[in-house]
């Protein structure tokens, strides 16, 4: 540690003691070892991570599937219990031997615990918690990169080597180390509780979020309204935080959040009735499974009203997770960050985790309900016959996969970032006007129109023609946008003209 020479008396820097010392040493070691490798080979490592993740997911699924097959072929045929007494290691070994699988002696001991429901739940919870933590960490890093590029700068570049990939982790370490401040005049108890009231519901929303037909922790029949409820309950934390801070700006932020949330929930929920009517269920897995037929069978292109519903939902969802242009509760430039002005350290980080997780959740709702969930634009009927491992793998990658789901969600998160850094914030009266007098009537018209369409035109030729036109139109817009973006990326310096600097500082 460098001691700076200053004229006043300095206390020695705090030393980590006990287990914390070991953890810090380990983190430092991993960082110093990983940085040169990551900055040398960023591309292969990214590719390797994707392939490795796919393989891990696949292996885990195969092992669970195996155990289920063994349990199904069991003579007793008993259902698995929570504590799992149905299968012995001898039975598993016999099954493995009869299928001539190598290393059955060790495998049977490895497979035995997988039949315990409790263990499965723990694995699932671990996966959800990991996903819940990784998504905000990378969304925050990405937001800073996108903001930088839009403002013609580089964004984080230093931590971790390749494009500052470890910036969010470094920020996390910094935030955990910060002092946990509670203002003297604040309501200390509520001030401490509020971040958890925002954090826990957005974590709970992930419990029912399906990443694929079988990739869901709890396949609940009311999953959709459960997720909406969780996104709605998250606001309680924000309001309580603003109130407990005992700060004018914070209370303003909390009040704006309250009236914005309560009003935008109405058009959002009304519009969500439309895909529910199409699917006839509230089960997210079933809604996703209904859209297997490729691009043109996605719910958004079902008829003009579902298309309107999709766009209305997306705008309402921006207001619902307080993103720009509806980021009045935390408007940095006028309310000094609104409801979390007084927060610092870990509690502040909890608010950010909640916000970015909510962004993912509302994008996931848009993807599941309107844009084909985890399916690719290719119809599932074109899938290969699964006679070899390669074809099974290709089917998984090309036709339905959790990675496609996350990819689509991140496209919508990207649009949220893009809107935030290009559009100005609107006034509170404009927010409420656009909700009550624009969005809500549109939502009602779409709902009634969709109901009439379902009765009169569903399954006719007109319906198919409209679906094809809408699908082709969206495809054309998407491709047009992508080609403009690619052209801009290639000729960026020339397009900006004499304002462009050949080498940005820090590049």
């Amino acid at each position, binding site marked *: 540690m460098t001691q700076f020479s200053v004229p006043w008396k300095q206390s020695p820097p705090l030393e980590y003691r006990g287990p914390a010392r070991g953890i810090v040493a380990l983190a430092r070691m991993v960082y110093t070892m990983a940085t040169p490798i990551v900055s040398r080979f960023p591309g292969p490592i990214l590719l390797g991570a994707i392939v490795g993740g796919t393989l891990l997911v696949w292996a885990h699924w195969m092992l669970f599937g195996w155990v289920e097959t063994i349990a199904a072929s069991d003579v007793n045929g008993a*259902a698995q*219990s*929570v*504590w799992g007494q149905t299968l012995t290691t001898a039975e598993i070994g016999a099954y493995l031997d009869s299928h001539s699988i190598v290393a059955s002696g060790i495998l049977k001991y490895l497979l035995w615990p997988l039949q315990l429901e409790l263990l499965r739940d723990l694995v699932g919870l671990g996966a959800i918690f990991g996903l819940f933590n990784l998504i905000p960490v990378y969304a925050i890093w990405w937001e800073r990169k996108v903001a930088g590029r839009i403002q013609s700068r580089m964004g984080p570049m230093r931590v971790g080597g390749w494009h500052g990939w470890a910036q969010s982790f470094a920020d996390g370490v910094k935030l955990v180390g910060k002092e946990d401040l509670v203002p003297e*005049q604040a*309501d200390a*108890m*509520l001030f401490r*509780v509020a971040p958890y*009231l925002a954090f826990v519901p957005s974590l709970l929303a992930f419990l029912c979020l399906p990443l694929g037909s079988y990739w869901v922790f*709890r*396949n*609940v*029949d*009311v999953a959709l*309204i*459960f997720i*909406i*409820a*969780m996104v*709605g*309950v998250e*606001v*309680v934390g924000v*309001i*309580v935080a603003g*109130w*407990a801070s*005992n700060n004018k700006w914070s*209370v303003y932020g*909390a*009040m704006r959040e*309250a*009236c914005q*949330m*309560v009003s935008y*929930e109405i058009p959002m929920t009304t519009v969500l009735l439309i895909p529910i009517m199409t699917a006839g*269920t*509230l*089960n997210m897995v079933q809604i996703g499974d209904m859209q297997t037929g490729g691009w043109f069978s996605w719910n958004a292109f079902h008829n003009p009203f579902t298309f309107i519903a999709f766009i209305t939902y997306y705008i309402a969802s921006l207001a619902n997770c307080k993103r720009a242009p509806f980021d009045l509760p935390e408007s940095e430039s006028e309310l000094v960050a609104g409801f979390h002005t007084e927060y610092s350290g870990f509690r502040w980080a909890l608010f950010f985790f909640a916000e970015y997780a909510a962004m993912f959740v509302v994008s996931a709702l848009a993807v599941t309900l309107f844009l084909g969930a985890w399916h690719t634009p290719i119809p599932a009927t074109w899938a290969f016959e699964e006679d070899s491992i390669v074809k099974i793998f290709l089917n998984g990658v090309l036709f339905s996969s959790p990675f496609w789901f996350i990819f689509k969600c991140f496209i919508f998160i990207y649009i949220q970032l893009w809107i935030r850094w290009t559009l100005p914030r609107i006034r509170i009266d404009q927010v409420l006007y656009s909700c009550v007098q624009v969005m809500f009537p549109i939502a009602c018209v779409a709902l009634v129109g969709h109901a009439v369409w379902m009765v009169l035109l569903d399954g006719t030729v007109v319906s198919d023609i409209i679906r094809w036109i809408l699908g082709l139109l969206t495809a054309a817009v998407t491709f047009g946008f992508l080609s403009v973006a690619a052209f801009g990326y290639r000729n960026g310096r020339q397009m900006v003209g004499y304002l462009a600097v050949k080498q940005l500082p820090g590049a």
Partner: protein
Amino acid sequence: MTLRLKKILLLMTPLAIALSFATAPVQAADTDLSLSDQGIQTSADGGLLEALMFYACAGVTLACGFAICLSKNIVRMAVYLFGTLAAVALMYFLLLANFIGVIQLIVYAGGTLILLIFGVMLTSKSPWAKFEVKRSELIAAGIVCALFAGMLLFVVVNAEWPLETDAVVVGSSMTQFGTGLLTDYLVPFEAISVLLLVVMIGAAYMARQE
């Protein structure tokens, strides 16, 4: 005009409630609307976890309820109320009444509670809204509570508590629920929505600036 509107609104409220009670079918007991979904199995040997979860939920509900009574800060009361509502919703989930549980969360925790805190924020004069109880109010509340507790005790002691039901779990409870609302229970359902309409007209009337 205003008087007539008030009279109409006042008349329609009890009418709607009475209509919804009067037209509800008598055989309501045989269609159990709040049963399981496909995902959760009712395992007999999961009793220990279930019992633990039940006592945890009940404990949180009771603790938060007492905290509401003992606290004097209105916003804190609202947060304790949130604890009570969430724990009761969890209890519904434990009983496999998923839909009721979710509706409890979305309507009470996500809607009513937010409006409550919002109202306190808009109306309170001091930064920490205190809630002082007069002695006469305490006595009146005590009498009502004693009567209510007596009634509850009477019911608890005298009612039969079957530990097993013959209800068969078929498919999703949501389908039964929706079908029930739009067939057997259509008139009470519509009457309740008339009640909501009355409330909305009343609120819009009161909020209007003359």
